[in-house]
Structure formats: structure tokens, C-alpha cells
């Protein structure tokens, strides 16, 4: 037993030595091949980010970084981006696991910005983690494209180098109010029930204000704890308030349970709109309970933005079409891309476009190119707020709304029902 202990201790001591030796080695600078002056040289631009390889955000975050990787592979295969001085830039990813929590996000991003010499940063998945990373990006003067981070307040803190690819939380559900106004101007009573957590609360607050500004009456405004499985008390309150429309939800688990229990109690409402859960293909497993439920999505595979549409709107078209992206993603990862994957891809596209326009990798040049971004991509329109009050907030992109409808074969299919110009089917209204 004693000998074993000594052995373990000796092993640990050796490990300690190895660790400290490795710690020292990390100070060697990352390779940034110097470009030959006068052009014709090559350069590698490093894109740094953390992904949640472990922990609760694993699924969404993995899709997001898959999307980014696809973009990077495609650009590099095409030979990279040409700068004004003739240098060709290819891209290389540097990333670490953030374990879905905030403890080490700042440590890892500092490392990316200094030791790894990342030229550009992409945010982690989720608003909370991105918020912590943004401080570091700003402090070290690196541009950071945030994707998978919808909360508004990150952009109201005076940052100048952080740019949002997603539609912010404040406009997540507002489309459903516009849709309702078109479908049924007589419907006036809205119940809002949401998961009590940063993102969902932000969405709920914003949609409440928007609904009231449009003359609707919010008859119930109530939060429920994350992880709620029994919605009976909430549903009783909804029943008493007798709304025309239920809006809210939070994430996949609670959203689908809520939809199921609304169906079981046979609530007599004309429209149900929930966050996050409805766009997920798994939502169809609810069967009847999924029928007619609408949900906002950052992007859907069947949404068809085209170069012609861009021309009509007087915007520039950039990047692949939706179907090109879907088939390339399917070929590489063998699954249908979700909006998280599209978000990762579009973060890369934004950088690529800005670098091409700036003809340089310099932060200031790329920043001013990003400030003037106004383009249409397969993901939708992209444009940033440049007012210092909310610099970098996404103002071009809009949510699309999906609805689960009965297909011709009797199975449930997901249709895009809003905005009408991108719709694949008419909205089913009233639901019951």
C-alpha cells in the first residue's frame, strides 16, 4: 500500500512537471505567415472562439461551430480571400471548450486574443457567455461577431467591435403580433407566459410592450421556473383570463411540455406561439399538440431568399443560396442544418464580406466595412446599428415564423407562414 502511494505521488509529481513545462511552451507565438510585400503572398487569418463541447448547450453550440467550419472549409477550398495588396488570406480556426459555463470564458478569450493571436473572434453560443467574451474582445481590440446570442443588452453597453448576427430578443416574437393583426384584427386579448430566465424574459417584456403599443390587451403576464413540468396552475390562470392568443415559452423542454398540456386541457385559443421549441424537428413528435403551433425561427431551410429579391430591395446579395447551404451542410455533417448551424455559417460570411470590402485584415478597416454592411444572404438581411447607444445590434434581420400543419399525407409538416413574402403556406387560423 505504501509503495503504491509513493508510486502515485511520483506519477503526480511527474505530471506536475509536464504541466508546468507545457505551460511555458505556450508562450511561443502562433504562426502568422508574413506576407511578401508587393503582393502575391499568402497569410493565415486566425478565427478564435469557444464552443460548448460539453455541458447543457452542447447540441446548439456544436451545430453552430459546424456551420462555421463549413464556411471556413468552403472559403479555403476556393483559395481564400484576396486583399488589396494582392495577398491571399486563408482561415484557420482556434477554439476551446467553454463547458457551457462562464467561469473560463474570459480566460480562454484572453488566451485567444493574446497567445493565439486570433485576428477575429466569434462568440460562444448563448447570450450569457457572449456577454462575458465581449468585454475581452473590446479590451483587446478584436472584432467579435456574435451568433447564437440574441439578448439586446450586450449591445447597449458601449461596445464598438461587437456585431450581432441574430435578430435580437426584443424582436423575437413581435412578428406574431403583426401576423395576428393581419389574420384577425378583431382578436384583442393576449396571454404571455414565459420561462423565468434571461432570454425568455427579455423576449416576453418586449412582446408585451409591442402588443400594448398595437392596442392589444395583455390579460396575463406570468413567468414560470426553468424546469417546470406541471403547467396546470398556469393553464388554469390562462383559462380564467380567456385570451385569444397565448405567446411565450422558453426553451425546448418546457416549450413542448407546455404545448402538450395546452392541448390536453383543450384551451379554446385561436393562436399559440412559443419560443425555440416549434422550429425543432423533434417538436412534431407531440402529434396533435404540435398542430397549429407557431414559433419564431432565425432561419429555416425552406426559406428562399434570392439574388433577385436582393436586387428588388436595392441590397447586395452575398454567399450561397439556401439550398446550396443545405446540401453542402448535409453532405458534410449528415444532418439537416438547424438555424444554429446557419448562424455559425453566417458569422463567417459577415467577416468574409467585410474583409473583402476592406481589402485588409486591420481591425479598423474591417470594422468600418462591417458598419456599412447591408446585404441579403441565404440567412436573410443583415445590417448593424451604428449609433453608439446600441452599436452592433442587428437591425436588418427578421425572424420567420413556422407553423406545424397537416400535410397531404396526413403527417405533420413545418411550413413557413410569416413574413408572407417568404411563406410556403397560408397560416392555419384559428387553430381551434
Amino acid at each position: 500500500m505504501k509503495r503504491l502511494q509513493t508510486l502515485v505521488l511520483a506519477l503526480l509529481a511527474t505530471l506536475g512537471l509536464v504541466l508546468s513545462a507545457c505551460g511555458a511552451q505556450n508562450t511561443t507565438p502562433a504562426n502568422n505567415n508574413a506576407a511578401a510585400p508587393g503582393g502575391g503572398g499568402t497569410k493565415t487569418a486566425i478565427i478564435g472562439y469557444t464552443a460548448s463541447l460539453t455541458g447543457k448547450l452542447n447540441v446548439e453550440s456544436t451545430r453552430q461551430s459546424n456551420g462555421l467550419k463549413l464556411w471556413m472549409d468552403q472559403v479555403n477550398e476556393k483559395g481564400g480571400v484576396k486583399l488589396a495588396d494582392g495577398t491571399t488570406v486563408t482561415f484557420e480556426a482556434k477554439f476551446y471548450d467553454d463547458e457551457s459555463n462562464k467561469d473560463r470564458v474570459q480566460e480562454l478569450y484572453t488566451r485567444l486574443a493574446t497567445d493565439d493571436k486570433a485576428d477575429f473572434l466569434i462568440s460562444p453560443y448563448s447570450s450569457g457567455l457572449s456577454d462575458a467574451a465581449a468585454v475581452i474582445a473590446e479590451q483587446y481590440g478584436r472584432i467579435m461577431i456574435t451568433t447564437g446570442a440574441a439578448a439586446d443588452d450586450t449591445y447597449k453597453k458601449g461596445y464598438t467591435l461587437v456585431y450581432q448576427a441574430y435578430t435580437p430578443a426584443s424582436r423575437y416574437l413581435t412578428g406574431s403580433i403583426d401576423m395576428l393583426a393581419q389574420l384577425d384584427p378583431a382578436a384583442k386579448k393576449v396571454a404571455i407566459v414565459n420561462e423565468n430566465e434571461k432570454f425568455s424574459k427579455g423576449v416576453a417584456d418586449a412582446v408585451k410592450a409591442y402588443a400594448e403599443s398595437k392596442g392589444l390587451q395583455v390579460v396575463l403576464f406570468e413567468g414560470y421556473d426553468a424546469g417546470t413540468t406541471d403547467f396546470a396552475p398556469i393553464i388554469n390562470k390562462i383559462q380564467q383570463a380567456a385570451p385569444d392568443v397565448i405567446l411565450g415559452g422558453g426553451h425546448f423542454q418546457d416549450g413542448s411540455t407546455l404545448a402538450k398540456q395546452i392541448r390536453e386541457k383543450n384551451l379554446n385559443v385561436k393562436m399559440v406561439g412559443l419560443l425555440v421549441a416549434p422550429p425543432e424537428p423533434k417538436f412534431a413528435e407531440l402529434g396533435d399538440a404540435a398542430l397549429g403551433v407557431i414559433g419564431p425561427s432565425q432561419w429555416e431551410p425552406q426559406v428562399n431568399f434570392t439574388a433577385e429579391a436582393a436586387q428588388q430591395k436595392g441590397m447586395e446579395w452575398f454567399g450561397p443560396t439556401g439550398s446550396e447551404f443545405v446540401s453542402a451542410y448535409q453532405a458534410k455533417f449528415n444532418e439537416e442544418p438547424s438555424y444554429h448551424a446557419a448562424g455559425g455559417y453566417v458569422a463567417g460570411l459577415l467577416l468574409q464580406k467585410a474583409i473583402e470590402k476592406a481589402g485588409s485584415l486591420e481591425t479598423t478597416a474591417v470594422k468600418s466595412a462591417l458598419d456599412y454592411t447591408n446585404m441579403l444572404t441565404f440567412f436573410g438581411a443583415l445590417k448593424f446599428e451604428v449609433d453608439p447607444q446600441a452599436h452592433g445590434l442587428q437591425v436588418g434581420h427578421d425572424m420567420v415564423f413556422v407553423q406545424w400543419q397537416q400535410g397531404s399525407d396526413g403527417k405533420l409538416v413545418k411550413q413557413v407562414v410569416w413574413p408572407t413574402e417568404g411563406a410556403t403556406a397560408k397560416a392555419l387560423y384559428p387553430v381551434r
Partner: protein
Amino acid sequence: MSTTSDVLGRLHARPAAARWRNPGLWLGMLALLLVGLWPVVSGQAATREVIFTMLLAIALASSLNILMGYTGYVSFGHVVFFGLGGYVSMFLLSLGQPLWVAVPAGGVASGVLAFLLGKAILRLRGTYFALATIGINEAMRTFINNFGPFGGSTGISLNFSVYGNYGGAANALWLAYYAVLALALLAILVSYIVKTSKFGLGLMAIREDEDAAEVMGVFTPNAKTWAYVISAIIPGMVGALFFFKNGNIEPADAFRLQFSIETLVMIMLGGQGTVLGPILGALGYQQLRSFLLTNAFFKDYQLVIAGVLLLLIVLFIPAGAVGWLRKRFPRLRNVLP
């Protein structure tokens, strides 16, 4: 873990002046100071961030050790003080109060909470106490989640311009770093003072046998409460600095139970009930995690490897590194506090 004769031996062998001549304490603190000043000299921000995380862990582990190592009460939910301190100071910072008001306020709030709680839950012993601390952390999270002035579930965010008051974000991060270094050193000093005081002896007597301690004249409810308060103040201030540096705070980050458990692991690695143990444990644990996370080869398996290593250590060296040294080489007991 020290035996009763060890405790009794120390009663005789510690004249007041000798208390300050312990080479282990000063060497330990000097070593930590050198590690802490390393990024200042080298100017490397990435190293600073790594060491920031380590100093944070040292301050937390040393503080918790007062309760867990000396008194024998395992607090699973100690992160509640870290989170509360963070919340109180972020609230004050968002109202425009300066950092040197907000950080001590965080510490005071945590201390007050510990005092109030201690009166109630320290009457529980063993597992019951440990379970109660988990409950308190969960209750606090739910409360803050619904508490409007602290932002409810959205939490509190600082405007980037706040850092301008401290000479810009770069300076603010250095300031937070120096402050955490100071707190880590303070935590060690407090831990040593408690351990070598009569109060500390009382705590260790409680750990060995609470009823016997009471018979021998230790007024246990008070002693335990004060140990709890002392172990809560520094985590409150450290939480304030951590969230100041992060720029935002949310209930799920502030009251993360796993963080508490990691602190317990650090203490067990280094050796509970010793002054140097938590330092060593925190350094070792954090170095291991940050190495595995950023190493190209290990980063996909980092949790597996960390788990296996921890299991081996807990199985074969349950007294922790410093505890094992003290047991193996009794002479070291005088120099390794």
C-alpha cells in the same frame, strides 16, 4: 486529519511569538506572491487570466477550509456567499458606487447572511448541515430569480463605460487582478491566524468531538457561527471582483452548485484542515483543468482525465497532499501549517 494528541501537543508547543515564526506560512505566502506577480513582470494577459482563476480558487478554498477543515462542517452550498457578494456589489456598481465601496459591501452582505443562517442551521450536524447548505443556495437562487431590484432572471449588466472610471477596461482588469491577489493572501493569513488561535483550537475540538468540546468549555454555537461568518466574508468579496470583471451577473452563474463542489475537491486534494493544503489543492486543480482545456491533444477528453485523476487521488491520498506529508514525515508538522 490531526488526532487529539496532535491538538494537545500544539497547546504546549506554541508560545505567542513563535506563532509568527513559522517558515511554512511565510514561504507559502512568498511563493504565492511570486506566482501572483509573475504576470505583472511578464506583462502577459493570458497568464494573468489563468492565475486570476487560480487566486480566486485559493481565496475560496482557504476560506471554506476554516469551516470544513478546522470545524469539520462540510458546506456544499458555499457558493451562495460568492453569488450574494457578487449581486450586492454589482447592484451598487450599477447605481454608480465605486469599486472600493462595492467590494467590501459584498463581503459584509455575505458575512451578515452567514451570521443569520449560522444561528439557525449550524445546529444541524454532519450530513444534515451539508444538505441544508445546498437548500439555502437553491433558495437564494430562486429568490434572486424573482427579485426585481436585482434584475430578476435577466440579472445585472454593467455598462462598458464603468471601466473608464478605473482607467479603461485594460486597467480595470489589472485592478481586479491585484485585488484578488491581495484577497488570496489575506485569506491565507486569516486561515493561519484562526488555526493558531485559541478560537481555532476550539473549532478543532468541535471537529474531533462536538460534545466533548462543549464539556471542556467551548461555547459551540457561537464558535461555529463565527467560523461560518469568517469563511463567508472573503468569498463575498471575491465574487464581487469576479462579476465586476465579467461585466454581468445572472442567477444561474452566481449560484452554480458545481462551483461549490469544485472548491471542496480542491480542499480535499491539498489536505483539509491545513493552511497550505487548500493553496496547493487550488493551484493543482486549476492548473490541471486549464492545461487539459487548452491542450490540443487532451481538450476533447479533458473532463474524463480530470475525473480519473481526482478519483485516484481521493482513493489513495485521502488526507490530501499536505495531510499526507504531515502524516508521513511527522517533523514537517512544525513547518507545514
